[in-house]
């Protein structure tokens, strides 16, 4: 079946009032981004619907790409016929569509809407004409008006006659970019990519901050974090990946600070750096993958002691999720297998055997005075490197081409 376009229905946008235009513009832009690999495709973002005109491009891979775009409620592959197409043409097109999607035993309904009042047949005439033809072709079909398993929609509009038979659920959420801009502390574990995904689902454009500590952490650990960002780019387009050298800070903290407070003060330094980067990039918050009670740094007391260094919103979309729930999402968004690859990241080196799960805020502040906070901050910020990461980028397997020749 050759479809002429994919009709995209908007999600929460209908409630957005004056911002509606901006949402539609951004969604159109995001869809154009993910459909870049299909040069024939043209995206038209209109007030009530968005149309992805296929111009000969096969529908299936486009449908797959659209499934990841936030801000879409549902979408349907559509065949467009000329506005004066004969009943016979509608009948045979309907038959072809049914053959592609109908499963024996399903109940069935034809629903016609007619905007073009000049079309020679009225709604009833089309319903009846197509319906009786279809029943002749598929004698075992059962008609069901109220809750059919299979609905063939015929839209007779001024611009043409549109037929569709399947409605695919979209990713929901808001178009990435309409919810402002924030940074995200991306470690390389299971949680932070999931948190980033959830931030993006609410329309937030996220810049990834990754701390790395050579030579204690490897290039592979860095490549893994970048590959995770590439996976996330499927949901919101190009991602800024900001790598922050963290070795000096960790060494200084390890040297000066009592063991029980190592972790808390390391984290304060991370959040301080993240906050500085956030403000510098005109972002309005920091997302983290923290989940309450998961590890020592994720108790309420710890969070208070760490959060103390910034007044920016620190946002934790996974706060009340269980690990199993987080893993399920990680699998769904295809970050899990990457996340569990065994490279030490900066969170796992220099961890004391027994970190304080309930650090005292005053003590934390006092111990921190043992290190040169400003000097270390400035040095780390001066060493930042930013990489633009696109969906499909592969850093861990950068050797792939060399190997492809061998294999």
């Amino acid at each position: 079946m050759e479809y002429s376009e994919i009709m995209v229905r908007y999600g929460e946008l209908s409630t957005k009032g004056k911002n509606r235009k901006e949402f539609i513009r951004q969604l159109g832009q995001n869809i154009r981004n993910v459909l870049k690999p299909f040069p024939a495709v043209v995206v038209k973002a209109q007030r009530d619907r968005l149309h992805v005109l296929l111009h000969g491009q096969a529908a299936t891979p486009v449908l797959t790409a659209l499934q990841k775009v936030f801000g879409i409620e549902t979408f349907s592959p559509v065949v467009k016929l000329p506005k004066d197409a004969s009943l016979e043409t509608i009948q045979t097109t309907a038959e072809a569509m049914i053959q592609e999607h109908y499963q024996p035993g399903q109940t069935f309904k034809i629903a016609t809407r007619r905007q073009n009042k000049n079309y020679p047949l009225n709604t009833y005439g089309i319903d009846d004409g197509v319906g009786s033809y279809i029943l002749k072709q598929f004698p075992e079909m059962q008609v069901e008006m109220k809750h059919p398993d299979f609905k063939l929609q015929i839209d007779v509009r001024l611009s043409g006659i549109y037929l569709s038979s399947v409605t695919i659920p979209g990713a929901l959420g808001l178009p990435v970019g309409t919810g402002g801009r924030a940074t995200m502390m991306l470690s390389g574990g299971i949680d932070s990519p999931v948190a980033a995904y959830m931030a993006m689902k609410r329309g937030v454009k996220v810049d990834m901050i990754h701390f790395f500590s050579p030579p204690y952490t490897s290039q592979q650990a860095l490549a893994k974090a970048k590959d995770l960002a590439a996976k996330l780019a499927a949901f919101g387009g190009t991602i800024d990946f900001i790598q922050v050298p963290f070795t000096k800070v960790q060494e200084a903290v390890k040297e000066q600070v009592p063991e029980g407070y190592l972790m808390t003060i390391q984290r304060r330094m991370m959040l301080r750096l993240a906050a500085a980067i956030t403000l510098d990039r005109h972002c309005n918050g920091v997302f983290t993958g923290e989940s309450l009670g998961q590890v020592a740094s994720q108790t309420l007391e710890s969070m208070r002691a760490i959060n103390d260094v910034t007044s920016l919103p620190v946002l934790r979309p996974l706060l009340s999720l269980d690990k199993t729930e987080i893993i399920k999402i990680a699998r769904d968004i295809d970050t899990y297998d990457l996340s569990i690859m065994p490279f030490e990241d900066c969170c796992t080196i220099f961890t004391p055997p027994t970190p304080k799960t309930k650090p005292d805020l005053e003590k934390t502040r006092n111990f921190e005075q043992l290190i040169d906070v400003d000097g270390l901050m400035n040095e780390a910020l001066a060493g930042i490197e930013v990489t633009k990461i696109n969906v499909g980028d592969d850093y861990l397997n950068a050797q792939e081409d060399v190997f492809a020749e061998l294999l």
Partner: protein
Amino acid sequence: MIYFDNSATTKVDSSVLATYQQVSENYWGNPSSLHNFGEKAEQLLRQSRRQIATQLEVQPTEIYFTSGGTEGDNWVLKGTAFAKRQFGRHLITTEVEHDAVKQSMRRLAELGFEITYLPVDGEGRVNPADLAAAIRPETTLVSVMAVNNEMGAVQPLDELAAVLADHPKIHFHVDAVQGIGKGLHQLIFNDRVDFITFSGHKFHAPRGVGFIYARTGKHLMPLFDGGGQERGQRSGTENLPAIAAMAKAVRLVKDHEEQTVAHEQALRRALRDYLQQFEKVHLFSGTGPHFAPHILCFAIEGVKGETIVHAFEEAEIYLSTTSACSSKKGETSSTLRAMGVDPEIAKGAVRISLSDQNTMAEVEQFKTVFARLYEQFKALS
């Protein structure tokens, strides 16, 4: 020389050998090592696995590397028997399996498992009704080869799968050591098949390497415990040069599958048509889709298989008495026995097994030598 013993082993392809050598020289780190050099080896291992999976249209996590066909068969059989022993101790196979399956079954029988051996018909094929009748509530495994290594019969895996469709908990294993690159992909990778055994040296990869396909969610008990390689299922430092070489050989065999099948079929047809004319020749490999394109088994009445093999080797033509693994034991082919072939005739059985590298010119040369030898044999008997 003319090499007609490709079911015993194939010649390593020169570009596959080049991969083996380059990997040995440049990526000899241990894939389990943490350092970058080991990580490169790990990446190559991953990419090899991915390539094989892509070629076979399965998931990379469904491929486990082994040392070859014998290990693969042993692992699936014993691994299933042990993993599922609390559910039952009855296993089903056929009378015409390779010894890797048969002897594993014999060993399991010693350990208290009960084995049913399904008979075959005159063409060497299992009857699905026999399988249906053999299944019991305590059956945990059915193991059937895809292509018989001795006479080339292709088993009706789709019909056997249909029987097993009603028994989703029984592991269905296919030994496809002779079945890769022979136009049988759809048959072997049936939706109901859970495990498949492959061996590298049967398709121009080095020996000592192979792999099994294990459907997602189906569990075996590991036979090798140790460092936890292959996701804990098959410990032992990976034979990376051989694995990478095998990944390449899989690609080559899949890329050329259609031509290879047509080519081998043409050679086999020419050989068969020729041999058919001789009064004392008995052909055991039939024609049509029930027979693999590369194996032709026949006997010359009154002449021992071994005599034929040696007579041909004088002319530098290498064929085999039925299976290479059992030929030195001096037994008559158990496959032919199971097919009901007269033991006196089965004694004379030999096998020609082809690869894409054989040519029609070789077939012509074989015919000339055969005509001469046939006259000699006739005079003898």
